[in-house]
């Protein structure tokens, strides 16, 4: 009887240990989770991810709204029709303080009207007008500009914050990416992005977004949209590169970001951003 009791006690004790051991496994996450970015050793397998910290700058005063960036992006990344990783908006503010915003097909074909005939024959300066016909009187455009938009690769990222499966994350060099093999397609991140930069890929059924052409920038190239910009309105660079042009620009120019009130800390900065931009 006594021995039996002892045996049982021993069993309970060992079972308890086993259970505690298993619980430890459950409770302690994989060692890598705790690693901070600066703790990662740069080895052979790990490229120079920690040597860079990317940043994007858009000079709205230089953008001519040709849409070359939108076309290049679609080609480079195979973006499906009617979805956009980047797009260009046209703002026209008229005499009566009314803001006309448009972005036909995301600016893919530029902003020319479908039918060029009127442009080629009319003697008017802007026959297409700001969407309300004409451009005279109270409809006269007093201020106009183009605003290229894209993923802001925020530091305080609202989209990766809500991803339930860790499929969307911020890379060590500061790019917000989506792991398409882990994404469950819940579209929570699409809802969480205040800038409308994400969409669900109609064929892959996963979240898709601008990657700052991660496959280019990690090979020393510029993102496709920057490469093709004819006026240098789009600039991209590395904050860890002391001699980079972008570092100088960021240090000297007057900058703004989109929806600063949301405190998303975008890493896509704007020069000459008007207060009317949504």
């Amino acid at each position: 009887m006594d021995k039996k009791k002892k045996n049982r006690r021993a069993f309970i004790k060992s079972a308890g240990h086993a259970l505690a051991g298993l619980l430890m496994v459950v409770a302690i996450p994989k060692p890598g989770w705790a690693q901070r970015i600066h703790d990662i050793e740069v080895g052979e397998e790990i490229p120079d991810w920690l040597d860079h910290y990317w940043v994007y700058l858009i000079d709205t005063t230089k953008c001519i709204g040709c849409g070359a960036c939108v076309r290049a992006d679609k080609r480079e990344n195979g973006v499906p029709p009617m979805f956009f990783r980047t797009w260009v908006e046209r703002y026209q503010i008229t005499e009566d303080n009314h803001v006309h915003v448009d972005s036909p097909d995301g600016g893919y074909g530029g902003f020319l009207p479908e039918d060029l005939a009127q442009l080629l024959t009319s003697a008017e300066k802007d026959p297409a007008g700001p969407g309300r016909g004409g451009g005279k009187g109270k409809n006269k455009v007093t201020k106009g500009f183009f605003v290229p938009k894209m993923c802001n690769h925020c530091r305080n990222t609202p989209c990766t914050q809500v991803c339930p499966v860790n499929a969307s994350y911020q890379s060590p060099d500061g790019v917000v990416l989506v792991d398409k093999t882990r994404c469950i397609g819940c579209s929570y991140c699409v809802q969480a992005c205040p800038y409308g930069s994400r969409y669900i890929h109609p064929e892959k059924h996963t979240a898709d977004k601008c990657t700052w052409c991660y496959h280019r920038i990690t090979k020393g190239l510029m993102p496709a949209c920057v490469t093709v910009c004819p006026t240098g309105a789009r600039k991209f660079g590395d904050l860890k590169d002391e001699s980079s042009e972008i570092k100088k620009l960021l240090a000297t120019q007057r900058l703004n970001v989109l929806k600063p009130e949301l405190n998303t800390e975008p890493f896509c900065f704007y020069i000459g951003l008007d207060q009317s931009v949504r």
Partner: protein
Amino acid sequence: MTYSEYLFPNDMHIYWSLMIVTYPFITGLIAGAFMASALFHVFGLQELKPISRFALLVSLAFMLCATLPLLFHLGHPERALNVVVTPHWHSAMAGFGFIYSFYLVVLTMEIWLSYWEEIVTYGRTSASGMKKTFWRAIALGAGETSDDIKQANKKAIYILGLIGIPSACTLHGYVGFIFGSLKSNPWWSTPLMPQVFLLSAIVSGLALLIVMYVALSSKGYLTWSTKCLKTLCFYLWLAMLFYMISEGLEILFFYYESSDAWFVISTLLFTKLWVSFVVVQIGIGVVVPFTLLSIMLFMKEDQGLYTTMAVIAAATALFEVWMMRWNIVIGGQQFSKSYVGFRSYHPEWLDQEGILTTMGLSLLPFFLLYVLTRILPMREAAEATEEEKPLQSGEPAEQ
């Protein structure tokens, strides 16, 4: 400064559609029905004894279907378990798998213990050997029903109820958190959101129980007691009152703060949501049941009119909660993130997330409930002999 209509180019699509309307409606019923049973099991409201066990079965039936709308919605349902494999702890949605499993265990335990005596009896008296084995397995090989055991079970049920209340609240409240915590969406972003969801969940749970209670007891499946109905109606009135205050405060604050949020919400309320929110949800869904329930506070419960009014009030309240889910989920996506562009949503019949799927998923819990009640009795054996009054309107229940 005024704006012409403009939607961001990626904002042409409504990603959260009927399935995401159905999902919180179902979890709301789960939480609401559990609360109703907790009123008896935990807070000792004896009047609710006739539905206390049935409410748990209702909760379980809906619980078993709760994941389906989500699976229908996901772009990759086969990866659904990623949410527990690599959960992201900063995401409200990541909690789902864990909260769901936890509450499922609590609920199953509670039902198991509530039916302990029946389970043991079936294990002894079932005709076929198969059935006997089944019930003995359910009883985990134990078969004691002494007073001591009953006492211990009662205590366990009480404790499970105590744990169950916050977990049922969490299961549903986190859905409110999912919406309320998105700063990108002014129509959703308010700390009142979980509370509004929770209160409307209790409204829907009580309302469903009222409708089912009147229907089932008129056929004799549940013990009729006017006191039970009166208590259910009172708590429905109370829940609606708090719900109305929360929802009203939400809109009032949007209006009074008059920030960027009101810029888009005011337009939304008077255009896209005018019919579905203002006219249908508030005008019909809130005003009708609340007026009826308020009148019923001063009525004698043992008249046919009271029962009729209770059913109408409960049915409209149930409808109101469904509309509230619709208006929050769909309404929150009917404007672009530019805040100056709006879009419409028309559900398809045959879509994967369409109307037929929604109807199927809404009926499935009732089928499961039917199956559950074929296995487990809706009422307690001892209860049938207790003071019983035949139903005034409709057929007398027993005797």
